[in-house]
Every structure is written in C-alpha cells, then in structure tokens.
C-alpha cells in the first residue's frame, strides 16, 4: 500500500500535469486492448504475456468478457482485453463506469486487422478517440495495424498511410489536431508486436531519460554498439541507449534472452543433489560453489562465426536483464567490460530501488518463470 503512496508522490513529482487530473491512484497503470472482434487482441495478449506460441493462437476462442492480465515486473501493468463486440460509448444504458475504465489508464491500444476490411474499425476508433479526447486527453492512443505478416512492405505502408490520414483528417475536422495517436505495424509472428509494446510501455516509465542516459554512457565506455534493458518475461525492452533504433539488433537480443530462458529452464530449474554439491565443493576446489563462480548473477556471451559484434547478457534483477551488442574484437576486453557492466548494474538497481521503493535484499538469481515455456517459435 504505502508503495503506491510513494509511487504516487514520485509521479506527482515527476509529471505534475499527469497527476493534475488524476484520481486517487487505484492500482498499476493500465493498458486497454480494443478493436473489432477477431482483430487479434486476445492472440496478442496471449503471445506477449502468456508466451503462447503464435501458431497456437488459432485455437483461442474470441473474448466474450473483459479479460484482465497483470504484468508483474519491475513495474506492475494491467492489461485489459476488451471483447470486440462491446461498444463502450455507444450503448445508451451505460453499464460501464467509464472512469473506472479510463481512470488511470496508461494507454489505449487499438488493434486493426490489416488483412480484413478495416473501414468500420477505423470509424469506431475515430469515434472512441473523440470520446476520450473530451475527458482524458492525456491518454496515449496506440494503433496496432495488425496481422501484417505475409503482406508486402509497400502494401503494409499503404495501409498505414491510409489509416493515419483517415484518422488525422477526421480528427482535424473535429478541431483536434495533435492528439497523442501513434501507429505501429504489428504481427505476432515476428518481433514487431514486442517492439510495439516496448514503445507503449516505455511511455509509462518515469525518468526514462535517466535510464537511457545510463545505457548510453555504458555503450560509450565499453564500446557497445547497442544496449537494451529487457523485461525478461515479456521480452519488452524498457530502455535502450540513444543510438538510433534498429529492429534487427532488437530481434537478436530478444532471441538471445529467449535462448537464455530456455537454457535456464532445462538446466537451471531443477534442484541438484547434495552429494553432487559435496563432490564439487570438495577436492581440489575446497570452497562453496558460490565462491567458485566469478559472478553471482547470470551472465552469458555469444560469438558469431565472423567474430564480429559479440553479444553479452547480464542479469540485473529478477525481472530485468541488460543485453548488449558489442563491437568486433571487444570480446577480448571482457574483463574491463564486465567491471563496467557491474557498475552499471549496480546503478540500475539503485534507480529502481528509488523509483519503486522495493528494497532488494540481495540479488536473487534469475529464476525460470514457473510455467514451462514452449520452445516453439
């Protein structure tokens, strides 16, 4: 409880305008998933938050009632999945407490099926925006133009342009010009959905700037090409350095995290026997395993055949991991790099301890998520 209080204070400190018309905080920031039925909302949430293999989303039956997921991570986020058919603003007998819904909403995610006739969906989106703009102008509206896999690039961008223009025109007709509406091309068959979510989430992070500064700094000192701070469970990255975005490096880092998770599960998630431990701590080592290891946190590295751009990972806490793409040759300088990384990791811990009064007793080793992960991709 008091955490929230804190949080609120901080928030009020950081973004006064936000807190201005914010009701007394009720729970974590909230993401709303809306859109026509069969537009893929459920698939999205199940893939992103339940690690469901994309091809298995075929079996998901369409949502009948609001489904609430909560992402418990470095910060708790709620995801509300709205059934497509529900018209929040239309139906006169208002069964919905609009405030309850949109009160502390972080962002509204509107999903449009790109492979379907989207005119109606756009219309409804437009309608929704209008309604929201009146009462909650600060709400970010994130439009996911979805199911773009299997579409040619030109075609994708055509669609995006169409929709964007439609919305903007409609809005400006209504006198609304700079509504916070963003568009993302997404698909559950590649990383685009995760990237989109990353963008959405990042907007919710207080002091994002500082995080980015730290990462940027790290990259400079260690000659990293790119560094991400990942939320391990969702593969959403909550921050990166200030070098330009680059899908491919994000993707490989994502998958790197995946591989690590899988390895962890297969070899790290089951208890070893005592005699095993005894043997290892006996001759010739004569010290507890904890002391035999160089680093008490999970660390990993990978070298490509062309020995360019090695990748390294370092656990930050039980939710977060630092993943970085190095420059060629720098793998030899691993020692210094590790030292630098240690420093940064410490810094990050600090950061989060401050931002959310969660005092980390001692860094606990990254645990594989309880439910077994499907390896399929």
């Amino acid at each position, binding site marked *: 409880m008091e955490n929230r209080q804190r949080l609120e204070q901080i928030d009020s400190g950081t973004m006064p305008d936000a807190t201005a018309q914010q009701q007394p905080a009720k729970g974590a920031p909230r993401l709303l998933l809306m859109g026509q039925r069969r537009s893929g909302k459920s698939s999205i949430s199940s893939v992103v938050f339940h690690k469901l293999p994309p091809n298995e989303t*075929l079996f998901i039956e369409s949502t009948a009632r609001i489904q609430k997921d909560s992402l418990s991570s470095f910060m708790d986020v709620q995801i509300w999945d709205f059934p497509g058919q529900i018209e929040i603003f239309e139906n006169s007998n208002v069964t919905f407490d609009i405030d309850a819904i949109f009160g502390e909403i972080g962002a509204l995610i509107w999903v449009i099926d790109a*492979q*379907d*006739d989207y005119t109606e969906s756009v219309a409804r989106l437009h309608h929704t925006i209008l309604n929201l703009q009146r009462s909650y102008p600060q709400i970010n509206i994130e439009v996911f133009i979805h*199911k773009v896999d*299997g*579409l040619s690039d030109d*075609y994708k961008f055509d669609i995006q342009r169409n929709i964007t223009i439609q919305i903007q025109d409609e809005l400006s007709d209504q006198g609304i010009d700079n509504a916070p509406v963003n568009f993302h091309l997404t698909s559950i068959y590649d990383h685009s959905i995760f990237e989109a979510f990353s963008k959405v989430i990042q907007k919710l992070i207080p002091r994002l700037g500082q995080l980015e500064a730290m990462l940027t700094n790290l990259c400079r000192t260690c000659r990293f090409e790119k560094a991400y701070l990942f939320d391990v469970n969702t593969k959403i990255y909550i921050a990166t350095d200030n070098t330009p975005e680059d899908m491919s490096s994000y993707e490989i880092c994502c998958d790197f995290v995946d591989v690590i998770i899988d390895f962890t599960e297969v070899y790290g998630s089951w208890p070893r026997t005592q005699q095993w431990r005894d043997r290892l701590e006996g001759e010739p080592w004569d010290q507890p395993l904890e002391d035999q290891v160089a680093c008490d946190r999970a660390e990993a590295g990978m070298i490509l055949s062309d020995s360019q751009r090695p990748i390294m990972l370092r656990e930050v806490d039980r939710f977060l991991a630092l993943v970085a793409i190095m420059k060629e040759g720098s793998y030899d300088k691993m020692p210094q790099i590790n030292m630098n990384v240690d420093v940064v990791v410490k810094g990050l811990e600090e950061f989060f301890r401050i931002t959310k009064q969660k005092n980390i007793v001692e860094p606990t080793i990254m645990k594989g998520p309880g439910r077994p992960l499907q390896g399929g991709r």
Partner: protein
Amino acid sequence: MIQGIFYARFFPRQGTRIVAQSPPGCIVPVPGVDKPCLFDFGVLQEYIIPRQAFRNRYITVNEPSGKYSVLGFPVSINDSKYDRNEFIFNFGLVVEAAAVRDGGTDGHDAGPGGDDNDQVPYERVVRRLAATFAEMEKQTGFLSQDQSARPVDDSDGSGGSDSETQSPSKARAAAAAAVRNDHLHNPVGSYRRRPIESLLEIIKEDLNNYGECMIPVDDANTLNMKLFPHHATPPIVRGWHVPVAKVKFADVVDPTWDLTLQRVVAHVDGVADVRRIAQRADVSLDLAKLALRHLLYYDTVLLLDIFLFGACYAPRPGIHDFVANVGGMVDECANYVCAGGAVAVSAKSTGADDGGGGAEGSSGQGASGNGAGEEVLMTTFCVGKTVAEWLKLHMDAGLDVLRFVDVRRLVQFGVIKGCLYRVHKHVVSKQYLAALATGQARPVAGGDPLQRYTDGCHTFDQIMTEQGLTDAEAMEKLKRLSASAGDLGVIYK
C-alpha cells in the same frame, strides 16, 4: 494431322491428370471407348507436367513406339491463393512423329516423310493455347474455378474441387491475397462458358480440316489460330539475279500489302535484274532485295540469271527427266516457249500439224513425247557454247529455231526445270590472287573499281550489273587493268 488434343492439369491430391481430351480416350481410357490410347500416359506424364525447371516453355517428346510426338507448353502460375501455391496445366497436341529412319528398333514403318507430319506449324498453336488460358486463368481463374474440371478417370470427385479447398494455414494468406487483388473472387459462374472438352474437339477438327480456327471461349476471349507452314530461310538475293514470278501477282496483290513489296512486284517481269527493278520501282536496292527475299520465302518467285545470247548454258542431269518427258515436261515446255502461237515444234516438221506425232507419242511408249523437237534443242546445249553459237548451229542445220521458239523462254524453262545451268564467267588475275594470298593486297578503295572482281569469286553478271557495263566493255577494262599479258584468265563454270 492432330491425332489428339488434351488438357492436363496437376491436382494437389491426384497429381497429373487429364481433364479433357479429344477424341475421347486418346490419352487415357474412358468408359465406352475401347479404342486403345495413342500412348502410355504413365510413361509420358512426367513430360506433360514436368518439374518446375521445365515449365513455362515449349516441350515436345516422342512416345516410345516413335509413332507420335506430344507437343505441349506446361504452364505454372504461382500464387499463394492456390493450394500448394501453384496452378499447373498443359494444353497439348499429339501429332505424328517426325519420321526417323527405323526409329523404333522393332522397325515400325517410319511414317511418311515430307511436310505432312511437319510439327513446326503446331508449335504456335500450342503456345497460343498456353498463353491464352494462362492469361484467362490469371484474370478470372477461368481454369481453377471450373468446377467441372475433374480428372476424366477420377471415380470420386474429391479431386475436382481441391484446387480451391484451402488448408487453415492458407486461410489468412488467401484473405490477404483477396485484399490485394479484389477482382480475384469475382463470380466466374456468371460466364457463359463452353466446356473445355468440346472446345478441344472444335480446335482439333477445325485445324485438321481448315488449318485455322476462330473459337469464342467465353464472352471476353476468342481463340484465333492458324497453321503456318515453316520454310527454310530463303537464299540471299543478289543485284544481278532475275526474279521470275511463279504466281500472277496482279491477282493476289492487294492494297494492304507492304508498299515497297507492291512496287517491286510490279516490275518483276522475268527479264529485269534486281538492280534494274529497284531503279524502276524507285526503291533502295536493299529494300528491293528484302522484298524479293520475302517473296522467295513464300515461294512466289524464283531467281534466275541474266539472259544473254552471249551467255552459255549447259545441261545437267535433270535433262534426262526432260527427255523422258517426266510429268509432261516437254509438252509444258512446248506451250511455254513456242513463239507466234505455233503449237509444238519438232526437229523437222514445219510446225502446224504435229498432231500425228503428238497422238502417237501419247498413245505409244508415253515417254518418247511428241517429236524429238525440244529434246534435241535442249540436249544440244553444251559447255563452251554460247546461246548465239548454239542458235547458229541449229540454223545451219536448217532449223529456223527463232521461228518456233522464244529462245529466252526455252533457256529459262530449262534452267527453272533444272535441265540447264548457266555457265558463269569468272575473271581471275594471277597477281591479284597471289597478293591476296600473301595478304599484301586489299581491295584498294581508290584503286580500280574492277580489280576487286579479279579474285575469281565474282561472275561477269555481277560486274556488268554493278558497273553498268556490257560484257565486252567489262572485258576491255579488265584487260587494260592487268599489267602482264598472261595474268588475266577467264574461267567458265
């Protein structure tokens, strides 16, 4: 003759199958037809729907017995809207195989030679069928939407529809496709369409009977096809050639013809050489040559040499056919060459009443023709004897040839029929030749225009036409050209 025509398709489930064929049972057996198939479909199917590398090109294969060839153009259209991502079909023809000497070892009689089983004309038909139906399929799914299209030997219709059934994995891709080309799923049912089977039937019949066909396939498309014979590329036309018309151009020529062609044709009189024709028709020499070459291709003219009394002609083996009056050649000749309406000439008879001889000739040993007249005239040509000399010879013998025959026509007839050949006159300069051999001399640009003719490769006709000289003049100039006396030689060949 088209022995069979078929429409084969690759079905994702049944594989390569014949959908339509004509005559029925010519490729795969159908109930009610006990006539054996033209060949074993099992053996040839891999050539009818081949692997990808060989699709979308013209393919022919002969079946093992060597009697027939299958001509086809397997088309595959790739599109994710199709099950297995492609639609593969082939409209093929079966024609007699080009007869090869003892083709099959079991010595089946090699079919009749000659152009009756020439496959070349059918290639365009096959290509046209492929192109047309491919286009129609792409536009309206003409073939893939055809619900009646199931293998002729397919007992249960499972295969018929399967090109359209889409596995779940496809569903979204197809939907996407739908968005992309919205004209995709327009109702093909709305077409008045002719069943392909009957279409093939008509094509076969028309092509076999009329050598062409014009068949509406549906409201939008019509198949126009014609069999064009394929000839060898005609020989090069030279400036000194004399074209002779084989048809009455006046009758066939029409305003739609190429203008140059029309002009040139107008001056083909069997006397004028190409160069002169070009001048008279007022077209560039090259164009004239081109035009004539065209006429040659369609075998409407033939090329002779310039006729001169000073020129010399000699018999060639073909003359024996003449003597034997093969195909009534002699009579034909008589009608062709006789001057001033006199009927036929004979060595002695003073024209007019040669009827007796004629009658007897035809009644008796048909060969010996009517009177030895033309034979004698023909056979007496000889190497080293100019027409003039030949004429004199007969005059002296008391035969007033000129009275009875148009000598030019006689000679030309001989040449055309292959009884005579022109003995050409070539001039050779020893020195020039030697020079060329050693590579010293090149035909000097500024030098004497005649020199380049003295390598023996050029006939006097050429020299005369190109230099606009008479034989005598040319000879004079050439003589003056050469330094030493014995240098110049004239070779008759």
